[in-house]
């Protein structure tokens, strides 16, 4: 038979840890919603699940196509990801890569993924990237 003490202490410990279990949902990364072009039909350039798993492959492929062959299609362009996905905060400022509010790092921080894309590439949308290619 369990003693009263054991039962009480077990109940107490469950009560103590309950809040932790309750908060488990909030421990997942909060990925900011894409604003610029997202619509209910397409959501992203591909199915969201596919993008979450394979975006790095698409980006890497596009990287070589653009760099080596001058193919500048927009579908898998990093600049397009940034334009659509990186949004302003309440003060009207764009988050930088590394901040939890930045689309890329919101998930990368959670998953401990280290990338060096933004050592060279701009991590924020700019006027030029919004209007697409610049001057003729």
């Amino acid at each position: 038979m369990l003693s009263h003490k054991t039962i009480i202490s077990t109940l107490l410990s469950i009560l103590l840890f309950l809040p932790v279990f309750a908060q488990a949902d909030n421990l997942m990364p909060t990925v900011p919603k894409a604003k610029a072009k997202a619509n209910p039909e397409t959501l992203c350039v591909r199915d969201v699940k596919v993008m979450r798993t394979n975006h790095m492959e698409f980006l890497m492929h596009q990287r070589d196509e653009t760099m080596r062959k001058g193919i500048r299609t927009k579908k898998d362009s990093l600049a397009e990801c940034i334009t659509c996905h990186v949004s302003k905060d309440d003060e009207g400022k764009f988050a930088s890569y590394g901040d939890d509010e930045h689309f890329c790092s919101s998930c990368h921080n959670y998953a401990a993924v280290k990338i060096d894309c933004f050592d060279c590439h701009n991590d924020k949308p700019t006027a030029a990237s919004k209007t697409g290619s610049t001057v003729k």
Partner: protein
Amino acid sequence: MTQPVNTNETKTDLYRRQFLGKTAAAAGFALAPGMLLTEIAHAKPADEAVSTKNRWGLLINTNKCASGCTACVTACQVENGWGEINKSEELSRASQKAVWIRKVKLKDKQTGHVQSLPLLCQHCEKPPCVDVCPTGASFKREDGIVLVDKHICIGCRYCMMACPYKARSFIHETIKNQKVHAPRGKGTVESCTMCAHRVDNDGIPACVEACNAEGHQAMYFGDLKDSNSVISKELAKNGGQQLRADLDLNTGVRYQGIK
């Protein structure tokens, strides 16, 4: 000093163009007369790879290049986000900072004659920077534009040693606020891209645009393989000189008027 640019290829290309031209003209009359020629001359679809059909080049007339004018340099800085435009390189000495294009003054000590010219990557047909690169980061596109693939550049700077024109720079510091079409980062080498992002969209390099806007018209941009392009016609008529022609690099950037 005058050297023809790929005489054989130009010839083949001419035949091909004439053939294409005739076919296009036939189709053009059937569809929409007058609209077709410009379509043929320009417009690489965004999903089409650059090809050896083109070789992009620059022709610089030093007689028209005004000494003291730095419009081309400023335009390059604004377009590609280096120098005065991007202040990220704050700890580097002047000699360490990135320079994609510079104005050079030539003075003949005997006569005192002074000339001014812009010096940039010469986009060689046989680039020494590509020869020495241990990773394949330094490469030449099919259309003749010489670039650095910073994704695989390890920053060894062999290419900087190999370049006879001092055209390349190494980035020593963390760079912020890059232009979207001109990524730049610490630990990699960079140089003039002949504004590949503009060229791929049927544009002309920012330096040429700025020179024209200033009214100097000292720079031409065009296809060296297209015998009908302004640059080819001008080169065929008046010739153009390579810097360090003795190195036999067949540069894509040619100069007129250097005395």
